[in-house]
């Protein structure tokens, strides 16, 4: 089984896999420092001007800010709703539980384009509301609640429900039990849920495409820029910044998650 040939093949496979996965992403920072409007080889020279162009591009910064606001609102609302749902699913039994779970999960499997058209019809024809970042936020909550619920259910199932009973037994009501016992124990889950919902919302295109009004989110704005080649390098610069931030956030959330696991299973002294 463990012949040298096989392990060499495995290593080759793994290396190729990583190159295919990450090389395209790494082209982004590479071209963002290249002194050429067109992102192609050979590279011409090092420059920071695309980063300066990015900082002067007010509509691009506005779109970034819009996406950030939507993302934060979506992650907050979805995590709170997901927590309620996860608590109901893990701590209580009630008629129709299976059906309700399926209904909450449904938006994950319905194609976004169908969901987008349906929501657009609902918002414009039924409720006659104006399209805005609020409608985008609402649609993103729809697809993020199931994600938040899944993350938090795993966390809630992971701890002894006697802990909550013990808190009641020691004289605390539901509200104080939540803040003194449940919240600290599921905090790593809440952070994961928040980050997952944020990233899902941040790069969501189809729903935002149908439901954003005059104010575009970042993916919509970038899509619009593809018609103007001179603007592309600024986008590459912004992409590189976002990539950097994503790596930091993932590293942080992974560190936080491990810390959570440690404090439950017992290895910090």
């Amino acid at each position: 089984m463990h012949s040298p040939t096989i392990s060499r093949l495995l290593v080759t496979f793994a290396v190729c896999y990583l190159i295919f996965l990450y090389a395209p992403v790494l082209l982004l920072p590479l071209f963002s420092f290249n002194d050429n409007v067109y992102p192609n080889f050979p590279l011409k020279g090092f420059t920071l001007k695309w980063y300066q162009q990015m900082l002067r591009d007010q509509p691009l910064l506005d779109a970034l800010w819009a996406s950030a606001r939507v993302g934060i609102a979506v992650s907050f609302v979805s995590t709170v709703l997901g927590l309620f749902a996860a608590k109901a699913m893990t701590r209580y039994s009630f008629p129709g539980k299976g059906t309700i779970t399926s209904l909450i999960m449904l938006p994950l499997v319905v194609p976004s384009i169908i969901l987008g058209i349906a929501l657009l019809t609902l918002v414009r024809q039924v409720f006659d509301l104006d399209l805005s970042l609020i409608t985008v936020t609402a649609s993103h909550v729809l697809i993020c609640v199931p994600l938040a619920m899944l993350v938090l259910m795993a966390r809630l199932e992971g701890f002894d429900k006697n802990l909550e009973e013990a808190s009641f037994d020691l004289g605390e009501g539901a509200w104080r039990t939540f803040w003194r016992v449940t919240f600290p124990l599921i905090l790593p889950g809440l952070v994961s849920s928040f980050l997952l919902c944020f990233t899902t919302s941040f790069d969501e295109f189809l729903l935002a495409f149908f439901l954003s009004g005059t104010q575009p989110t970042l993916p919509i704005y970038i899509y619009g820029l593809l018609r103007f080649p001179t603007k592309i390098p600024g986008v590459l610069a912004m992409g590189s910044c976002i990539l950097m931030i994503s790596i930091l956030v993932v590293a942080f959330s992974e560190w936080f998650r491990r810390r959570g696991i440690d404090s439950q299973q017992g290895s910090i002294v």
Partner: protein
Amino acid sequence: MANGAANTMISIRAVTKAFGPVRAVNAVSFDIAQGEFFSLLGPSGCGKTTLLRMLAGFETPTEGEIFIDGQPMSAVAPNHRPTNMVFQSYAIFPHLNVRDNIAYGLARKKLPKAELGAIVDRALDLIKLTGYGNRMANQLSGGQRQRVALARALVCQPKVLLLDEPLGALDKKLREEMQLELRQIQREVGITFVFVTHDQEEALTMSDRIAVMSKGEVLQIDSAAALYEHPNCREVAEFIGTMNVFEGRLLTVSGGVAAVDAGPAGQLLAPVNGSAALTPGSAVSVAVRPEKLELSAARPGTGNAIAGRRQAEAYLGDRSHYYVEAQGLPKPIAAAAQNTRRGSGVAQAGEAVWVHWPVEAGVLLTH
């Protein structure tokens, strides 16, 4: 046991708990006195934990009412009951250290810091964990967690402490130490303890009184000695310790002694205990503990005797069980002998022996 209205702490009145069609607890009524160490004993699924959880308020009775210190409890939430619980899993808060765990239930009292600290120090002293205050739950052994759970409940000064198989997860030696320690702490604090266990030895060692439960019903409530010596039915007799039971039919009752036709075991005599109406011809059993039996080569003049052949010996260190096979009996008879002077006067395997016991050592069981 004095059980007047004045010192009754818990009163369980016709309590039933149904989960769908299953009656986990079925029309149970009894009282527990103030300061009593009371055990609920029974096999798993007998309803003892459900009954305990109803005392704590985590389950609501389907029918009936529970009174604690004279107050009806059905409308009282767990956080407002004068009870505290030691959970089977201990339920030590993993994100808090030992001191914060112990002080958890005192937070709402808003005590001055110094006073709170003094209470926690006293509690740590009581459970012999002084100096462990800053440890987290995952740095404690099973026995230490168990004690923290106990201290956390006791500092709330409950009227009743509920313990759900608290020693189940500990190894044998530690369990025996904790049994003694728990009993001592209970005497010190004088709080009523309701202790759930499936371990009959544990219940016998620790309790003032024991309720033996089976299939949601209470079979017998008595002191350890009374349960062992005078079980009121076959289930209790066979659940607690080892019991030889000979089934038969009642022949006559005269002078407090019943004569029973026990088929292959011959005619046996047993004292009549209690005032139950006994009709000749009804199905009864005669039960006798192994240590009340003696083996001899010749038939003794008085008492009950059954002829048989000595089979295997089960050596238990301090004592041995000898199994005697008698013609026509479904199970061999178990007889126990102390091993104080080992080897003296015990029949060899394969020898014909008489198993005999004085009439007053037996128990007559009617169901």
